[in-house]
C-alpha cells in the first residue's frame, strides 16, 4: 500500500478562482462568533499584507479595492467530492479527508502510470490544470501521508523503514492536535514528533488520550488504518455556482470545462462512458433552462465533450445572465471495450443482448416484443406478442423424463442422491393446470450429481421435498 495525500489548503479560494477572474485582490470572508474575518486570501492580497484570521475591517483598511466572497462550506464539500470523482482516474481507492484533503491509494496503480514519480507528477499536473495547487506527500499509510502532506516540500516515502525518520522530523503543527494539546506539548519543550516518540507511552496516553496515540500508531504503521473509500455513484450530477453572472457562451464554457473534467475523471474511474448529458442553466428570476446533448456513441473524453458543448451552446441564445450550471448525466454505460474474435470478427451475440437492453431501458420492458402463435382458431386470438427476453429459450428441458418423478432424500445441505447434488441453474417456476384439477406449482433446477450427470430436479412450491424429474442425456 502506498498512499498519496493531497491537501488543498486554499480550496475555497481555488474554487472561486476557477470560475471567475476577480477584479482585485480576493479574500474569502468567514463569520466567526459575530466577527467577520478573513478565511483565506489570494497571493495578491497576501502580498498587500492581508493574513488569514485578520478581521475584515483591518483587511479592508489595508486594501480598499478588495474583492470579497463569502465562504461557502457546502460548496467546498461539493468541490472536494468532485475532486474525488476526478481522482478516480488514478486509482480505485480514494478517501475523502474532510474538509480539504484526498487520499489516493497509488500502490496498485504505480506500474500503470510508469512509477511513483511519474504518477505523482501526473496527479499534480492534472490538479494544476483544474486550478488547484495542492500540497502532497506519499507514504506507506494514509495517516502518515496526510500528516506529511502538511509540509511544503512534498515528501515521498516509499519504504517502511524511512517512515519513522520522516515522521520524527515533523513539526508538531502538522499534526491534527487541539490547541490545548499543542500548548501542552510546547510547554513540555517539544517541537517535533520525534521528541514525542521518545516519551513513555503510558504518560503520552494519559496526557493526550488513547485516540491520539492510536493515530500515532497508525501513522507509524504499527496498527492497521482502514478507511472508508469514496464510492462514486454511477451517474454524475454536479452543480457549479458561477461567482458572477455570465451572459456569454465563453464564460459558460469556462465553468463547464471544469465540470467536464471532473466528469471525465469519474468516467475513467468507473470505466464508463456516457452518451447523453443534460446541462441546466439557472437564471436569477427565470425558470432554469435545460439543454441536452445526445451523442452518437458513448464518450468520456472531456476535451471532446467540451468541443461538442461549444458547438451546442453557440447555437443557444441565452435569455438572461446565468447564475449557476448544473451538469447531469444519465446512467453511466460501461465503456465499449469489445473483445474481438480470434480472427477479428466482432462478437455479435453480446452486442445483440446489449442492444435489447438499451432499447428496453429507454422504451420500457414492454416495448420490445416478439410475435408468437397461439393454438386457437379465432384469427384475432391466434397470435400474441411475447416479451422478447423472457421465454426466448423456455428453460432447458431434459431428454429423459421420469414418470412418476422420483422422490429424493434430503441431505444436510439440499437434495441427496448417491452424494450431494449441486444446483447449477434455476429456479424456473412452472405453474399451470389448475383447471384440470392437477395444479402444478414447481420450482425446477438443473443439478449435477457426484457422477457428473446433469439432473432435472423440482421442488413443490411451499414444500421441502425434492423430486428428480428428468436426466439430461
Amino acid at each position: 500500500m502506498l498512499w498519496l495525500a493531497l491537501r488543498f489548503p486554499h480550496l475555497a479560494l481555488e474554487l472561486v478562482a476557477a470560475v471567475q477572474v476577480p477584479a482585485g485582490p480576493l479574500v474569502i470572508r468567514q463569520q466567526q462568533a459575530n466577527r467577520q474575518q478573513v478565511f483565506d486570501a489570494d497571493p495578491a492580497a497576501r502580498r498587500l499584507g492581508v493574513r488569514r484570521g485578520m478581521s475584515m475591517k483591518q483587511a479592508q483598511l489595508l486594501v480598499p479595492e478588495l474583492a470579497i466572497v463569502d465562504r461557502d462550506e457546502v460548496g467546498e464539500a461539493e468541490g472536494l467530492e468532485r475532486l474525488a470523482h476526478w481522482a478516480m482516474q488514478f486509482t480505485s481507492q480514494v478517501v475523502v479527508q474532510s474538509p480539504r484533503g484526498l487520499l489516493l491509494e497509488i500502490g496498485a496503480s504505480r506500474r500503470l502510470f510508469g512509477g511513483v514519480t511519474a504518477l505523482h507528477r501526473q496527479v499534480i499536473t492534472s490538479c494544476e490544470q483544474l486550478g488547484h495547487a495542492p500540497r502532497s506527500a506519499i507514504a506507506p499509510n494514509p495517516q502518515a501521508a496526510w500528516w506529511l502532506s502538511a509540509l511544503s516540500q512534498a515528501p515521498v516515502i516509499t519504504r517502511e523503514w524511512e517512515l519513522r525518520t520522516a515522521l520524527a522530523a515533523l513539526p508538531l503543527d502538522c499534526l491534527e492536535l487541539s490547541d490545548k494539546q499543542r500548548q501542552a506539548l510546547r510547554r513540555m519543550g517539544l517541537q517535533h514528533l520525534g521528541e514525542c516518540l521518545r516519551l513513555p507511552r503510558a504518560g503520552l496516553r494519559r496526557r493526550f488520550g488513547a485516540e491520539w496515540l492510536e493515530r500515532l500508531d497508525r501513522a507509524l504503521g504499527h496498527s492497521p488504518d482502514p478507511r472508508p473509500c469514496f464510492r462514486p455513484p454511477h451517474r454524475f450530477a454536479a452543480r457549479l455556482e458561477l461567482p458572477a453572472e455570465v451572459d456569454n457562451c465563453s464564460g459558460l464554457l469556462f465553468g463547464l470545462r471544469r465540470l467536464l473534467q471532473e466528469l471525465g475523471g469519474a468516467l475513467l474511474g468507473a470505466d464508463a462512458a456516457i452518451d447523453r448529458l443534460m446541462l441546466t442553466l439557472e437564471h436569477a428570476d427565470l425558470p432554469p433552462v435545460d439543454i441536452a446533448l445526445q451523442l452518437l456513441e458513448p464518450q468520456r473524453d472531456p476535451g471532446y465533450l467540451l468541443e461538442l458543448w461549444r458547438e451546442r451552446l453557440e447555437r443557444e441564445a441565452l435569455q438572461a445572465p446565468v447564475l449557476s450550471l448544473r451538469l447531469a448525466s444519465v446512467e453511466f454505460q460501461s465503456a465499449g471495450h469489445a473483445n474481438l474474435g480470434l480472427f477479428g470478427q466482432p462478437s455479435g451475440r453480446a452486442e445483440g443482448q446489449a442492444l435489447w437492453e438499451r432499447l428496453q431501458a429507454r422504451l420500457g420492458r414492454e416495448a420490445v416484443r416478439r410475435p408468437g402463435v397461439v393454438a386457437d382458431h379465432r384469427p384475432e386470438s391466434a397470435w400474441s406478442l411475447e416479451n422478447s427476453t423472457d421465454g426466448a429459450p423456455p428453460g432447458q428441458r431434459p431428454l429423459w423424463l421420469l414418470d412418476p418423478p422420483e422422490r429424493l432424500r434430503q441431505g444436510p445441505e439440499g437434495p441427496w442422491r448417491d452424494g450431494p447434488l449441486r444446483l447449477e441453474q434455476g429456479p424456473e417456476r412452472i405453474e399451470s393446470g389448475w383447471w384440470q384439477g392437477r395444479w402444478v406449482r414447481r420450482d425446477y433446477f438443473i443439478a449435477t450429481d457426484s457422477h457428473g450427470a446433469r439432473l432435472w430436479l423440482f421442488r413443490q412450491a411451499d414444500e421441502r421435498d425434492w423430486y428428480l424429474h428428468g436426466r439430461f442425456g
Partner: protein
Amino acid sequence: MILEELLSSAPVWRGDTLLLGHRPRTLPSGYPALDGLLSGGGWPGAALTELLLDHHGIGELGLLRPLLVELGQAGKPVVWISPPYIPYAPALRQARIALESMRWVAPDQPGDAAWVAEQCLRSGSCGVVLLWPRALNTKMLRRLQLAAEQGECPGFLFRPRAAATQSSPVALRLLLSPQARGLGVELLKCRGRRPGAGTCLAV
C-alpha cells in the same frame, strides 16, 4: 504511359473501382429479375433501402419475404419498428419465416422510432431493420444511412411515394406500385445504375 501512371496514382478516384473495388456485401432478394436490376445482384447489405409506396398491402412484405426467411433461418433478429399493423404471427409462420427472430418495437414517442432504428442498425447484431417512419428529415436519413454502413446492417424504410421528390442519401430507392400481374418495381436511385429501369414481380 502517362495516363497509366496518372490512373495508378493515389489521388485519382475512378468511378468503377469506387463501386467494384470496395464491393459492399449484397443480399440476394430471391427474385432473379430484381437481382438483375440491382447493382451487386441483390439488396445492399450495409445500407438503407427506401421502398416508396402509397398503400400498405400491395406486396411490399412479399418482396422482402425471401430475405426474411433466409435471415430468420440464420437466427439473425429481424426488427420491425412501428409497423402500421400487427405482424400476424400465423401468417409469418405460413411464409416459413422464423418467429423466434422477429422483434416488434413500437415506441410511443414518434421521435423514438428513428432512435431505435439507429441503435439497431449500428449495433451490428441485427439481420435487418424494417422501419415505418412517421416523418423523417434528410439529416435523420443520413444518420440512419451512416449507422447502417457502420453496423453493416441492411435497413428498409417504407415511405409514401410523395417522398420521391425529396433527395435522400440512402443507397437504393425503389418505387413500388400495384400492377395487374404483381408488384411493379421501378428504380428511382441505385448506386452504379441508371434510374428508371423497372420490372414486374409476382410476389
